[in-house]
């Protein structure tokens, strides 16, 4: 059964059709990828599926339940957590605090618990600290917990964002271009990390990525968008062989084909 499903999504901004009748499924326990040339509507679709945009038409189903139109902060309670294309960390807060914020929705304490240091407050703060440290250690940032987020190097900031989604306890994680701006070694490390998240932590992952080698290596299924339209979906092999995809990426000249997609 598909864990997350978008059905016939239309997203219009005034006269601009950012998404036109796009559907996709993400199978539970799998890694699926969303690819397409710049301006294809990948991030828009992500925003629709995580509640940051309400689709003009169409449905978003999570575990078979309609979630479109819910306020964005409810999605994480349902079990969907995301990262952003431009790294969005709370720069002035510590690494640990950034991750602890991911536990926000799992905690029940209110202002009065905090004022009177109630047992619930103490227990929840300890639990959130522990699970956040666990998430940090999983991505390999355990010894940087006390640093301010802004002091981390770029690659670590990406990992921190991923740790934050892990701390939410969500079963489905959506990564928007997780390895943008990374070098080859960092990318290799990150793909290991994402595989671990999928295999060891049993999380369902969906990612947007431009690096084809990265996508082909990681994904179980790939969906291709181009200019706001659904173009193709299938296994990495099927996508690589699909002439429509090759055309969308490279135009029709044969010469260029082997250079990008076939690599």
């Amino acid at each position: 059964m598909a864990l997350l499903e978008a059905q016939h999504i239309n997203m219009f901004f005034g006269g601009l059709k950012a998404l036109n009748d796009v559907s996709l499924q993400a199978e539970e326990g799998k890694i699926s990828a969303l690819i397409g040339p710049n301006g294809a509507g990948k991030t828009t679709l992500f925003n629709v599926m995580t509640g940051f945009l309400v689709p003009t038409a169409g449905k978003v189903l999570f575990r078979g339940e309609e979630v479109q139109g819910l306020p964005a902060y409810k999605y994480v309670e349902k079990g969907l957590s995301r990262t952003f294309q431009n790294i969005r960390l709370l720069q002035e807060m510590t690494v640990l605090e950034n991750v602890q914020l991911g536990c926000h929705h799992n905690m029940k304490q209110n202002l009065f618990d905090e004022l009177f240091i109630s047992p619930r407050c103490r227990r929840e703060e300890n639990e959130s600290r522990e699970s956040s440290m666990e998430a940090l250690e999983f991505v390999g940032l355990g010894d940087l917990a006390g640093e301010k987020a802004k002091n981390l190097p770029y690659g670590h900031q990406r990992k921190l964002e991923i740790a934050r989604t892990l701390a939410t306890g969500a079963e489905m994680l959506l990564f928007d271009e997780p390895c943008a701006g990374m070098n080859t070694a960092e990318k290799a490390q990150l793909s290991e990390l994402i595989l671990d998240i999928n295999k060891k932590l049993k999380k369902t992952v969906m990612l947007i990525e431009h690096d084809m080698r990265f996508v082909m290596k990681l994904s179980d299924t790939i969906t291709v968008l181009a200019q706001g339209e659904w173009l193709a979906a299938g296994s990495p092999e099927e996508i690589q062989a699909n002439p429509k995809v090759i055309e969308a990426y490279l135009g029709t000249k044969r010469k260029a084909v082997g250079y990008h997609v076939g690599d």
Partner: protein
Amino acid sequence: MKKVYGLLKRHSIIVIAVLGILAPLVIRNTYHVHIILMCMMFGILASSLNIAVGMTGLSNLAHATFFGIGAYAAAILNTRYGLPFYLTFFAGGLVAMVFGFILGAPTLRLKGVFLALVTTGFGQVVRIIELNWVSLTNGPMGISGIDAAEIGSYSFSTVSYIYYGLALLILCMYMSKRLMGTRVGRALFAIKYDETVARSLGVNITFYKVGAYVLSACMAGMAGTIFAHYVSFISPDTFTVADSTTVLCMVILGGAGSLLGPVIGAFILTIAPEIFRFAQTYRMIFIGAVMVIGVIANERGWVPMLTSKIRGLFHRKQTSEEGGKA
């Protein structure tokens, strides 16, 4: 030395409490005692405004208005219905909370300058209501003859007002301290730094923004009731937009988002104009210039800047000692 500093920093609330308790015992001059009380009032205002401005990142140029609303509520309830201080105190806080909600709820989507404008407008509207709703507020003549605060048979002296204000100030600071580093405070800071992230992590930003306004308004309103019973006469001129601006300056100059900064800022900006009273009107020009330069030179505020400087000093000393040993 480092240990002493660390101890002072960790227990800064206790330091303020001890200073606040000792000050009226040492200082007997009525004029000085009045200034200490004003320090407490502005300390509460700055510390509570810090919850909205420093922690949640909402601008608010109407904080003195909430103080005024609390004071008016106390004055009206006391002079009309004879409610004693221990009831008007909570009533004033409640009324200010309601107004905090009225201001907070419709302005949620606004940010920065727009929010500053709307809150300024709110301050003006409340002032105009105070001036013109004569049957309720007695208009520009103000309300006089507010009873001195009493609890049981004990009637407040100026010093007891100070201690009452001090207790409220300590409550404000304690609340801020508890907020920093727990769930609710993290959510507030997340809203300040990046609303989108806060939403994506399950923070109901509507709830927390309104909550921050309501909470800070409540504290300001309670302070207002103490003030009303203390001076026994209030008028619309007591709580102006200029006062709101001053409170905002205290927060920004002292260090928005820090625990001690806004309170120290309040103390300094309350005492400085009194010290420079001999310079008459020139002192406001001087203090204004200090504010401008202070903010330009250091956006973070002076208290956080100084503490990090001092920490750096200790750090350097330590490393050079280690170097010496090696």
